[in-house]
């Protein structure tokens, strides 16, 4: 059946893309100047031997890859070196063992640091994404149905404004409005060091901390979903089968729910999947403004501290989630659209 080969092709390309990202990731951070020993504050107490010892600990004394001693400054080296002694192959071997190396900054394994933060990002972006999908698409459906009326223009303008606002700026304004006017917490995931009578109370505290970032997220993403949904539904409502549905005497609500929505959702699946892939990139700004200890904040900190292994791990995770999101979109599209499923 054509569908099966179609998916195999997609999966093959996804794997190839991931491999490309892995290789790009490695060389990208070897081209960048930078030295783990000197990461952070300059201090005269750092002796040359200490720097050399640190470089050995991070395996940076080995050649980058056969024939290349180092990429920045570019120094050629012996080509006959055993590949397993070069940083590249060690990196690949560790990768397949699930190790992403050690952070320059905290000496802790990158995998653990990402693991701790992953849950926080999902906790923040998950509900926000669902909220913006539901609100955005609901509004989009309504605006398309009532096309060229007050509701349509209002929601269109609203979404365009929401789409044009820089995320971090909206975050800052909400942070200050929320904290000074409503007494909402200023940052972080929960009140520091607080002891909770019950987990329910703890969750309540977390929710209080989540309120403002979630609102920011929802506003920013809702605009985009609404715009896409509106154009998708407009197109569907102009199709012949909508006229047939009306001719069949169906109620407008049923026409929208049974005939228009499923057809409009098809393109939306790809857009939603793509957005889910880019969640972390989007979260960088919101988590920074709200000090929310998620992956976005980890990217910001790792960049400020030039913590290359951590950046490398985070980029890999970002690229992986985008590739997987695309793959899932393709899968879902073929499952949901009978025209592709049945070949």
């Amino acid at each position: 059946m054509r569908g099966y080969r179609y998916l195999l092709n997609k999966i093959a390309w996804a794997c190839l893309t991931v491999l490309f990202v892995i290789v790009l990731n490695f060389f990208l951070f070897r081209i960048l100047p930078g030295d783990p020993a000197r990461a952070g504050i300059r201090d005269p107490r750092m002796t040359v031997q200490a720097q050399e010892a640190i470089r050995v600990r991070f395996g940076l004394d080995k050649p980058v890859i056969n024939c290349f001693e180092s990429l920045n400054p570019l120094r050629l080296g012996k080509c006959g070196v055993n590949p397993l002694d070069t940083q590249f192959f060690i990196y690949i071997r560790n990768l397949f063992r699930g190790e992403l190396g050690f952070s320059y900054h905290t000496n802790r394994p990158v995998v653990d640091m990402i693991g701790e933060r992953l849950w926080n990002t999902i906790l923040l972006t998950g509900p926000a994404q669902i909220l913006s999908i539901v609100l955005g698409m609901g509004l989009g459906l309504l605006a398309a149905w009532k096309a060229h009326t007050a509701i349509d223009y209002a929601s269109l303008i609203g979404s365009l404004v929401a789409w044009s606002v820089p995320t971090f700026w909206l975050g800052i304004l909400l942070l200050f409005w929320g904290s000074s006017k409503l007494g909402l917490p200023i940052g972080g995931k929960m009140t520091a060091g607080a002891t909770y009578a019950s987990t329910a109370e703890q969750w309540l505290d977390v929710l209080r901390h989540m309120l403002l970032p979630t609102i920011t997220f929802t506003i920013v993403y809702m605009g985009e979903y609404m715009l896409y949904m509106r154009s998708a539904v407009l197109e569907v409502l102009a199709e012949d089968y909508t006229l047939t549905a009306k001719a069949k005497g169906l109620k407008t609500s049923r026409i929208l729910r049974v005939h228009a929505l499923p057809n409009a959702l098809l393109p939306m699946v790809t857009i939603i999947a793509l957005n889910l892939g880019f969640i972390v990139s989007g979260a960088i700004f919101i988590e920074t403004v709200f000090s929310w200890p998620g992956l976005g904040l980890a990217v910001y900190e790792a960049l400020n501290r030039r913590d290359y292994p951590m950046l490398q791990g985070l980029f890999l995770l970002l690229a992986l989630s985008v590739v997987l999101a695309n793959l899932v979109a393709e899968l879902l599209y073929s499952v949901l659209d009978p025209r592709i499923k049945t070949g």
Partner: protein
Amino acid sequence: MSRVDGAPLLLDVRDLSIDFSTHDQGAMHAVENVSFMLREGEVLGVVGESGCGKTTAMLGILRLLPVTGRIVSGEILFGGRDLLALSESEMADVRWKDIAMIFQGAMNALNPVHRVGDQIAEAYVQHASKADRASADERVCRLLDMVGISRNRKNQYPHQYSGGMRQRAMIAMALACTPQVVIADEPTTALDVMVQAQILELLKSLCDSIGVAIIVVTHDLGVVAEVCDSVLVMYGGIAAEYADVDTLFNAAQHPYTRLLLDAFPDLTRPKDRLTSIPGYPPRLNALPPGCRFAPRCPAAFDRCHVEQPGLSQLGRFHSASCFLVEPK
């Protein structure tokens, strides 16, 4: 005399006029004072070149006009009620229960993401009483049998049907609630000749077997001769001639009808050369003064270019709008 002369009157359209408003070119008179009747079991053919307003008139009956269209005058009497006076919800009950329609572009008329069987059932369930709903599945199978589609294709999707089968499915759907009237808008245009014949044969047999009245909109006189009991010829939004099929084919009065017949190959009377009608159909926003057909009418004289001829009654079932045929 038409075959169903004595049958009770189902649909009586009187002086129906429909305008289209556009941004820059003002109002376009798509349909002007068109009147016709439909009796039980009758097959009425509505003939005319493309852009003569025939489809618009049909959509007007079911009030499915696009938002820019407006019915400016006329009455559509059906079952003793004027459809134009109904509220939207009352009209929704009439649609498909009493009057069903088969659209021209059948390719896209079925929803691609729902099974054909479900779409047919949906039409039935919408208008059936609570009790009958249970028998929806069984009813769909009988409908598919009627139109010659095998039952096991019920759960397939529209894209798995050929053009002809999709048209048959549309017909099945149209008959889901056994309506009194079915409007078929160019049912065979997009199909090849062989399939065309089968579809026409199917329509004819359904009309005889379950007594449903059918309006067939077409630009193909062959279809009219084959299937219809009476014919309404339209040109530039007006009713040029309206008669039973025998009178029309043998004693057409309106110059346009005669030219139409000449332009059509006829096995019974060999013609050496088919005459084509010079000129083009009028653009609805730049209609000529006087008779719409005047610019292309070989028999046109000065009055035709000035005045618009009214519809004159020539026989019990025969009328035409042309000065030549006006009783002196």
